[in-house]
């Protein structure tokens, strides 16, 4: 674990309400090594996206949020890091892909301008011309061949799938060490989603980018991730390599989650026990040899 890129230890989060505090995350431990693809799986409201927001420091400034524990990126404690340190991490070392690609690009700028701004974060005072050339190359990598038209378009003029690919290109533009993908493509239909995920998979493999993949889609996770964390109600309930989790499922919640995927061969809807008292069983951590390169 010495060369872990991101190391989250004993992370807890609660929100201070008017009369009571609501616990959202409870003692989360999670680590990602260089170039490793890690998936975080859980149902809606289990705290997946909140973890991403904490890593990026978006939540800490919010009123009423109480964050405890440590988040280390390359050994730097993010909580203690200065504003300058964090600013230099964001967009260069850590980047993020959002659920809805179209709304995460400013509608008043052309794609080319957005690329220019993002690339400017990586290399200061990059000229517009050079930025556009770089952008065309990046777009080619995500299989957009008509990059000239795309660079001249506004985000709302492109389809959702196209925007998602643009988002992937933007997120990987500065060759970040860690990419956080928060349910990418949930807003897209299944075929386009599969296509873009495949693209993303190939690209991060090529660039040796570590990925924190947040999803509720087990099928996608199975194909994409090296290691899986299953989260339920703010607690990690099972963790381990993808193969051991899928082949040797231990925790009742994970089993229920697997059964929830409708099978094309089954005649009726699944009959999973969703007795939540079972899900409170202690977490199970599979003992695997370290993966990660």
């Amino acid at each position: 674990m010495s060369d872990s890129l991101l190391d989250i230890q004993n992370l807890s989060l609660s929100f201070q309400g008017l009369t009571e505090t609501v616990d959202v995350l409870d003692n989360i431990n999670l680590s990602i090594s260089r170039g490793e693809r890690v998936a975080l799986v859980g149902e809606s409201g289990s705290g997946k996206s909140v973890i991403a927001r904490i890593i990026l420091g978006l939540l800490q400034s919010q009123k009423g949020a109480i964050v405890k524990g440590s988040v280390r990126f390359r050994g730097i404690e993010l909580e203690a890091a200065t504003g300058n340190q964090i600013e230099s991490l964001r967009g260069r070392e850590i980047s993020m892909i959002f659920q809805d690609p179209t709304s995460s690009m400013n509608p008043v700028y052309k794609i080319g301008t957005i690329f220019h701004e993002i690339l400017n974060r990586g290399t200061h005072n990059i000229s517009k011309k050079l930025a556009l050339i770089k952008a065309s190359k990046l777009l080619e990598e995500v299989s957009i061949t008509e990059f000239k038209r795309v660079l001249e378009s506004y985000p709302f003029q492109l389809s959702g799938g196209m925007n998602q690919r643009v988002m992937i290109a933007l997120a990987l533009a500065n060759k970040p060490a860690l990419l956080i993908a928060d349910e990418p493509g949930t807003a897209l239909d299944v075929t386009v989603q599969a296509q873009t995920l495949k693209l993303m998979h190939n690209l991060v493999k090529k660039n040796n980018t570590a990925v924190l993949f947040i999803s509720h889609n087990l099928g996608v996770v199975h194909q994409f991730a090296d290691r899986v964390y299953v989260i339920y109600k703010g607690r990690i309930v099972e963790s381990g390599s993808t193969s051991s989790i899928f082949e040797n499922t231990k925790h009742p919640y994970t089993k229920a989650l697997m059964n929830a995927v409708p099978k094309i061969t089954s005649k009726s809807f699944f009959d999973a026990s969703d007795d939540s008292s079972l899900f409170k069983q202690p977490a199970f951590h599979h003992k695997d040899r370290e993966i990660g390169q």
Partner: protein
Amino acid sequence: MKLKIKILLANPLSFMGLLLISLVFGSAIFADFITPFPLHKGAVVDFSNFNQAPNLTNIMGTDLVGRDLFTRIIYAFRISIMLGIVVLIISVPIGVFMGLLAGYSGGKLDFVLMRITDVFLSIPPLVLAMAVMGLLEPTILNGMLAVTAMWWPWYTRLIYNLTRSEKEEGYVVAAEVVGASRWHIMFREILPNCTHAIITKMTLDFGFVILIVSSLSFLGLGVQAPTPDLGSMVAEGARYLPDSWWLTVFPGLAILIIVFGFNLVGDALRDMMDTDS
């Protein structure tokens, strides 16, 4: 941009508005050439022709000291337009900046800035302007100052509300994630998404600023004689109604033309921007 002007011209109402505005601006710019008696803009006395009803030499009649009313109205356009431009140029940036800052920062700064704005908004505009003018001397400059002081809060409120809703948009969060500074997010991400509202409001406001300045002049607190001003001309003529009707009716119509023109264009702009989003 070209397309938008085309749309404006295609709509009969906004076309009329543009026509009225360009008529007013054109006549104000070329006042020296189109007015029959350019000297009458100042302190000139011609008692042989005083208080004449509209006729062929003085198409809108003459005032109480014999000056051509048409000439004075055209020159009064100049003052009105200048006032409108200056007031908006000063108050809009102040209001927009305050709104962006309060809306994006939130917290204590938001509270302080917006309560200051509320204080300004709670005073009836004309009363505030009159108070400022009463405190200072009634000159054009102070008039502009007074109207500016009452105008910026409306922009603060508008931009504040827009910023509050834009701030939750995905692209603002995305900009925060890539490490954009708060100034970058305020001015380069949020502000461009507010320009449509600002432009529309400015167009509508141009007419209202002129109306307010005319009201101040009507009360004797605005532009002072001998500088021609539509408001003070109406005030002066009102004492001689209904016999010397031209003294009031023509300056009043002039105010109507300006405000009406800007309102028509403003409304059309608002409709146009609405369909955009």
